């Protein structure tokens, strides 16, 4: 009986099976890459705000402490966003007529709050507490990056669960002395691991990887 298939059919079959596997892998890889890309995680994407507030100018240039505006960061889960009043404490005197600040003045005048666009958003089933991180020696810049160099604020890290766990599993790689928590330009020393281990013991930092630490 004559062969039904040409000999090349074997090759074609092999190639197409391999091709299908490859295509699946590539599609999967692309989706994976998309999931972690800036497009999805919004890392490095500056967000438009009603007033083009610059952390670079205020925190970097003027050297205003983080806690001047984010008042509750040391004692509440929520770091706190400044009320319009806080802006006006300076801007009723400085740049009091700048057109770009009109929304702030309007808010103060009318009592209508400003509506800022959230940059760091966690899912509703995640409960994060600023105060305990700050108290245990996790610096602002560890999660938020060099905010003092951001004209418009962007997300510095992915906020994926694996990113959180990186530190929850090995806090010694990231913690710093409490007095440097609010220092933007703090750089981990060469012997971070030695310092980290000492701080972990000193601050009684536990490796919190129970699910209920964040999910409840």
């Amino acid at each position: 009986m004559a062969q039904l298939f040409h000999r090349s059919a074997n090759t074609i079959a092999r190639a197409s099976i391999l091709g299908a596997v490859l295509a699946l892998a590539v599609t999967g890889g692309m989706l994976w890459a998309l999931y972690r890309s800036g497009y999805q995680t919004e890392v490095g994407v500056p967000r438009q705000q009603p007033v083009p507030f610059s952390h670079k100018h205020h925190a970097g240039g003027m050297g205003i402490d983080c806690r001047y505006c984010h008042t509750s960061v040391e004692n509440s889960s929520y770091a706190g966003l400044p009320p319009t009043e806080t802006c006006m404490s300076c801007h009723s005197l400085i740049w009091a007529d700048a057109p770009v600040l009109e929304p702030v003045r309007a808010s103060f005048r009318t009592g209508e709050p400003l509506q800022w666009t959230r940059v760091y958003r966690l899912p509703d089933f995640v409960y994060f507490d600023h105060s305990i991180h700050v108290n245990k020696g996790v610096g602002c810049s560890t999660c938020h990056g060099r905010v003092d160099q951001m004209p418009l604020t962007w997300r510095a890290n992915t906020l994926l669960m694996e990113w959180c766990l990186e530190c929850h599993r090995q806090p010694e790689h990231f913690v710093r002395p409490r007095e440097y928590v609010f220092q933007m330009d703090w750089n981990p020393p060469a012997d971070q691991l030695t310092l980290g281990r000492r701080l972990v013991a000193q601050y009684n930092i536990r490796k919190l990887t129970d699910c209920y630490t964040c999910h409840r």
Partner: protein
Amino acid sequence: MTQKDARNKTWRSLDELAGTAEFQRFLEAEFPEPASGGTDPVSRRDLLKVMGASLTLAGMTACRTPAEKIVPYVRAPEDLVPGKPLFFATAMPMGGFAKGLLVESHLGRPTKVEGNPEHPASLGATDVFGQASVLTLYDPDRSQVVTRVGRLSSWMTFLAALNVAREEQHLKKGAGLRLLTGTVTSPTLAEQIRSLLAEFSSAKWHQFEPVSRDHARAGAHVAFGQDVNTIYRFDQAQVILDLEADFLGWGPANLRYVRDFTAGRRVGQGPVAMNRLYVVESCPSITGSMADHRLGLRAGEVESFARKVAQRLGVQDASPGSPGPHDQFAEAVARDLAQHRGASLVVAGDQQPPVVHALAHAINHTLGAEGRTVIHTDPVEAMPVDQMQSLRELVGDMQAGRVDLLVIVGGNPVFTAPRDLAFAEQLSKVKLRVHLGLYEDETSALCHWHIPEAHFLESWSDARAFDGTVTILQPLIAPLYGGRSAHELLAALAGKASLSGHDIVRDYWEKHGRWKIFEESWQVALHDGLVAGTRLPPKRVALRAGFLKESLPAQKPGRGLEIAFRPDPTIWDGSFANNGWLQEMPKPLTKLTWDNAALVSPATAQRLGLHNEAVVELRYRGASVRAPVWIMPGHADDSVTVQLGYGRTRAGRVGTGAGFNAYLLRTADEPWFSAGLEIRRTGDRYSLVSTQHHFSMESRNLIRAGTLGEFQKNPRFAQQVEESPPPGLTLYPGHPQEGYAWGMAIDLNACIGCGACVLACQAENNIPVVGKREAGRGRSMHWIRVDRYYEGPPEDPAIFHQPVPCMHCENAPCEVVCPVGATVHGSEGLNEMIYNRCVGTRYCSNNCPYKVRRFNFFEFADWTTPSLKAQRNPNVTVRSRGVMEKCTYCVQRINAAKIEAEKEDRKVRDGEIVTACQAVCPAQAIVFGDLSDPNSRLARLKADPRNYALLAGLNTRPRTTYLARLRNPNPEIRG
């Protein structure tokens, strides 16, 4: 449409009710305009194209998380830290009496109610009504606008109409003005009413509560010849006789009494002593379930029993009547009471006739209880009256056409007034009727004006507790629906409509507070939740000589069945009918939800050929009502108990249509019980939903109980029933234990089965309501349930309660069967349930021997109603469909306390973490704590010889354990 029609007609929209021409046109066109005809320029094909494209594009948006706004304050309020709740002291008035509260507020939203530890009527606990009050506050069905005969109106229009009526009344000195309120203890409101009555000298003030304390008041009049408020000191009493007084279940002081009573039953280290409780009642109550000896008597037979006890104790003129079957019991009780002279007391129920109260006073006097276990004070009410008589007079005036202006301040008398007074009928003879109420209910439907009432969490007011202590009520939030308080309505009636509730209450205390520095004392009173020094002083009262001669001994109870009326344990007199939490909470003993029933004893049911859910016609004094039957073990024979409050016709979306209306049988002369009931079987069946059909423990020793004597002989009796396999006897690797080891102990000797823990958990953990149908399928979502078991003969069983939350097993059967690791073991011993991992296989629930896991079969949580969103605890995830959930030991509270402790570089202190169920418990039966700390209160309880684990033989090693129940029977009485 005439006004009369409007009342009787069902309607869908206000337009329909108003019968506007526009609505008529709308009805006549077969389709609403946009959909009529096929002449639209957009063709079907275009539509499909656009739909297809939008579907594709809609999918794209899911790739990115939506942008979210943060809205900070413009001017931040002082002392408010976002993320940290604030607590404000206030009080919940119920039946006029206050129970102190501390209300948790998140960014101005009250979310959870706790008891005020400093308030004498709360001591840190609350009842189910207090817990559920926060849901009523946010109820979207509350009335939201002033209406005039069902049409939208406004407060200003109302004021104009009211002023016209005021002027008219001025000319007649108020001869046509009537005010109808509930019981008033509020000093401010009383002062407002007094000054109103001074302005209109011929006007009259009537008070009416459907669940009134008329009989207690009348009983004091019989015994002492004056109004006397009686306070019982159960903590001082070693022997207590309860004459159908459900003193643990309801009343202005019940939370206090629970604490005091259970304090007398704690057996810890040291000398073992327990009080002894005798209960005589017709329908089993939670007080009856705590009794050491319970005697089921028809309500009408309680009097002769009381006379027998009184006679044996030497009370003169007690005239006990002929010997009966319970003489031995009475004899033994009397002897026990007499042996504990000065440390014994008798308490009579509000539904028992005045003479029983008088007998109780006489017995207490003979026992030397006055000043020791019983304290008398002046009345707490601003003006104590016989409320039934007060209502009767009002109806008489209405009938005679003497009433021009009737102002009904709160309450729902059209629904709750006794049938024979025909309140609704006579009400229509009043020229101008004004109703202030939380809901547009049965009463507002018959009134010209309905004014939305401000909830007590929205208004300034004041109220007194059972001992006279005044609390100034402060609002937690501005009125959501523009409601007005009673004070504001009264001010408007007095022509001072511009005064706010705050001004009125503050002015009163500025004038009458007798405070040296007003501002300081005012702030302290608001902060503490009570006004210091307002407790009524004890008062010596003398018994009237020979008062019992005047009151004839009770007639032989009438022929036929007896009917007894009780307030419903969860929706009370009907005022909480639209509260889903209370409707769904299983009633303490029947475990019924969403319905009331005619409760009968097993023997009576057998005699009449009745079974559970059989619909019967209850015929009583010419009225009849159809009701489903529920057989109640322990109920007195030949007696039927019905609960008031159900059968509402205008309660709202939750409460309308649930149950049957027992008020239709109630008459003014016998508001609580009377013989003469006839029962007719109808052959119909009505499905009732009970969350616990199974009464028996099937010899599984779930509840272990013994007598005090047994305990003294063998303290470890509870532990010897079932052996726990040795630790390590499992194929699974163990869990590493680090740091704290959380656990819980529940003292069954203290638990009274009130169910407050169920509601506290519901409020704290955002637990949804599922409705009657789903509850009937066993899909209730409560994380903690209170199981009820009977032991012994059905005619007189011992009753036990057992709260069952998640056991947090060390060898948890649920964890090993989860295919996705959604339930795992935490390092501190918590059995963790992770919603975002759960795919809903329900294997865990299947494998849980305690059946404490709850599954969201549907989207039970309301994600859309804006007002209900505001109630939620922001620290707990709102679960969605297809997710398993269960008790977390209030992990949000554990984490909050741990964070605070770690910030201060210390360990969490013992007692710093209080779970919601523990906080609410009036009996302090639930203790949560750290097992790794040998000095913690919990560790000591776990070392108690009474401590045992549920189903320990399964080797689950639960972290939640129980302390065995003890009873202290009188050796003289057998059974």
